[in-house]
C-alpha cells in the first residue's frame, strides 16, 4: 500500500539536514547583510577621522565662515568652503529649474494622457536614459551645449555654470519623470472616475486630483534628483571649470565640491598634506548636504501625504 502524503511530509520534516539549513540560513544572511552595513560605517568613520585631522590644521571657523578657497597657494593657503558650496548650488539650482517642470510634465503626460502603447515604449527608454554614463553627459555639455549657448550669448566662457547645470538637469529628468509617474499611476482609478463624473476635464483631474494625491511621491523624486545633482561629479569636472568663486556669476568657470575632490584626487597633492586632508572635509560637507536632502525628502513626503 502507498504511504499517505501526510506520512511522507512527516518523514521529510524529520530530516536533520533540513533543520540545520533552516537554522544556518538566517545567520548566513545576517553576515552578508552586515558586510554592506559595516562598509558604510567604515566609510563614514574614515571620512570623520580624516576630517578631524584636517581641522587640527585648519580652524573650523575658517572653513565654515571663509569665503576664499585657495588651497594651492604657496603661502597663506585659504580653506573657506563657501566658494565650493556656491559652485555646487549654482549647478543644482539650474538643474532643478530645468528638470522639475520638464520631469513633472512628462510624468503627467505619461500617467494621464499617453496610451498604454506609448507608455510601454517611453518608460523603458526613460530608464535607459537614466543609465547613460555621466561622462557622456559631460562631453555633451562641453562639446555641444556650451558652443550652442555661446552662439546666442557670446559672453559665456568655455567653462561655465550654465551648460553643465542644464545637462545635469537633463540627466535627472528621467529619474524625476519615472518616479513621479510611478507615484501618479498608483493613484486609484476610482478617484479619477469620481472627478471625471463631476464634469472635470482631463487636465483638471490631472492637476487638481492626481498631482496632489501623488505629491509626496513627486516631492521625493525631486529631492532624490536634487541629491544626485549635488553629488554629480563628471559633468561638472569636464564642463564647469576649476575656479572656486564666491559670487553670482554663471557665465565663467566655477568649481563645485565634487570637482574639487576630483582635481585633488587626480594627483595635485601628496598624501599627508593639508590639501590631501581637505578633500575629506569637503567630502564630509557633501555628505551632510545629501543627508540633509534625504531627511528633507522623508519629512516632505510625510507632510504632503494625502491618504487614500
Amino acid at each position, binding site marked *: 500500500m502507498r504511504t499517505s502524503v501526510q506520512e511522507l511530509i512527516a518523514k521529510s520534516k524529520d530530516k536533520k539536514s533540513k533543520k540545520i539549513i533552516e537554522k544556518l540560513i538566517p545567520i548566513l544572511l545576517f553576515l552578508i547583510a552586515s558586510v554592506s552595513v559595516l562598509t558604510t560605517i567604515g566609510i563614514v568613520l574614515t571620512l570623520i577621522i580624516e576630517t578631524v585631522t584636517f581641522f587640527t590644521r585648519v580652524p573650523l571657523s575658517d572653513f565654515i565662515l571663509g569665503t576664499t578657497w585657495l588651497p594651492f597657494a604657496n603661502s597663506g593657503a585659504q580653506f573657506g568652503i563657501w566658494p565650493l558650496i556656491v559652485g555646487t548650488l549654482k549647478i543644482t539650482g539650474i538643474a532643478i529649474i530645468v528638470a522639475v517642470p520638464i520631469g513633472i510634465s512628462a510624468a503627467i503626460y505619461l500617467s494621464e494622457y499617453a496610451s498604454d502603447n506609448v507608455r510601454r515604449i517611453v518608460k523603458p527608454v526613460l530608464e535607459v536614459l537614466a543609465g547613460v554614463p555621466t561622462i557622456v553627459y559631460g562631453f555633451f555639455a562641453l562639446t555641444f551645449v556650451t558652443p550652442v549657448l555661446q552662439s546666442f550669448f557670446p559672453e559665456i566662457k568655455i567653462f561655465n555654470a550654465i551648460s553643465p547645470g542644464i545637462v545635469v538637469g537633463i540627466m535627472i529628468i528621467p529619474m524625476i519623470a519615472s518616479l513621479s509617474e510611478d507615484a501618479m499611476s498608483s493613484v*486609484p482609478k*476610482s*478617484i479619477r*472616475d*469620481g*472627478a*471625471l*463624473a*463631476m*464634469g*472635470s*476635464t482631463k487636465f*483638471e483631474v490631472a492637476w*487638481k*486630483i492626481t498631482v*496632489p*494625491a501623488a505629491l509626496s511621491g513627486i516631492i521625493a523624486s525631486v529631492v532624490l534628483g536634487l541629491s544626485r545633482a549635488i553629488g554629480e561629479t563628471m559633468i561638472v569636472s569636464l564642463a564647469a571649470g576649476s575656479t572656486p568663486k564666491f559670487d553670482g556669476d554663471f557665465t565663467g568657470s566655477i568649481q563645485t565640491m565634487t570637482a574639487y575632490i576630483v582635481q585633488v584626487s587626480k594627483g595635485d597633492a601628496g598624501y599627508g598634506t593639508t590639501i590631501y586632508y581637505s578633500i575629506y572635509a569637503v567630502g564630509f560637507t557633501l555628505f551632510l548636504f545629501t543627508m540633509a536632502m534625504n531627511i528633507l525628502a522623508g519629512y516632505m513626503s510625510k507632510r504632503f501625504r*494625502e*491618504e*487614500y
Partner: protein
Amino acid sequence: MNTATIKTKINTAQPTSVEQAEKESVYSTRQLNLWYGNNHALKNIDLEIGENEVTAIIGPSGCGKSTYLKTLNRMVELVPSVKTSGEIQYRGRNIFESSYGVEELRTRVGMVFQKPNPFPKSIYDNIAYGPRIHGIKNKKILDEIVEKSLRGAAIWDEVKDRLNENAYGISGGQQQRICIARTLAIEPDVILMDEPTSALDPISTLKIEELVQELKEQYSIIIVTHNMQQAARISDKTAFFLNGEVIEYDRTDAIFSNPADKRTEDYISGRFG
C-alpha cells in the same frame, strides 16, 4: 452665480411617449446597442426615465445594468474599445452628438459609485471641488454650498466640526454620504447611483436609502442595485436587465407583485441570479 439660481429645472415640455405620459422623461433611450470589443453588452435598449422618480435597474451580474448606467453619463467611454449605436436623449438632446461635451453632460448628471471614492483631500475640499472647477471661487458662497450639500446628504451634523480633516478618516458609510454630498454640490439634474450601498453595513445602507427618498423630491435618481428588497423599498419604477436586454420595465409594485415575464418572476423570486 448665485446659489439660489444654480438650480433651474428645464421645464420646456418635450413631447413624451404615450405610455410615460404622467411625468416628463429625463432620459429617452432608443435602440441603444453597446459593444466591448466583440462582446455585445447592451442590445436594443429602449427606456424612458421619468423626472423626480427613482428608477431602479436590477438584474444578475454581467447583465449590463452598470454598463447602461455608465452610458448615461458617458463614463463607459473610458473603457477602450467601446462602440455604441442608437441614441440616448437627455432632456431632448442626443448625448452622443459630437457637439455634446461630456463635461457639460456630467455637470448635469452626477454619479455615485459602488465603492466610496472621496478625493484624498479634506471633507471641505471634497465638497467644494465641483463648484471650484466650474468656476465658483467666492469663499462665502463655497461655505454655503458645502453646508447645504452636507445637510442635503444628511451628514452635516456628523462632520461639521471636522471639515478640515481628510475624508479618508471617516467610516465607509460616511464616506459614501460625502460622495453624495459632493455630487449634490453642483446641483445636478440627475443622480446616477451604481450599487451605492453594496460596500456598506446595514445601518449605513438604511441611511442612504432614506436619503434617496428625500433626494427624489429634487432630483431624478437612477440606481443600479443587486439587492431586490432595496429596489422594492426605494424605487418608483424598476427595469429588469438580462444578458444585455431589458426584459421588463414597469412600476416597481407591478414588477414585484405581478411580473409579466416568466424570467423576471424567476429572478425576483430568487430562482436564479
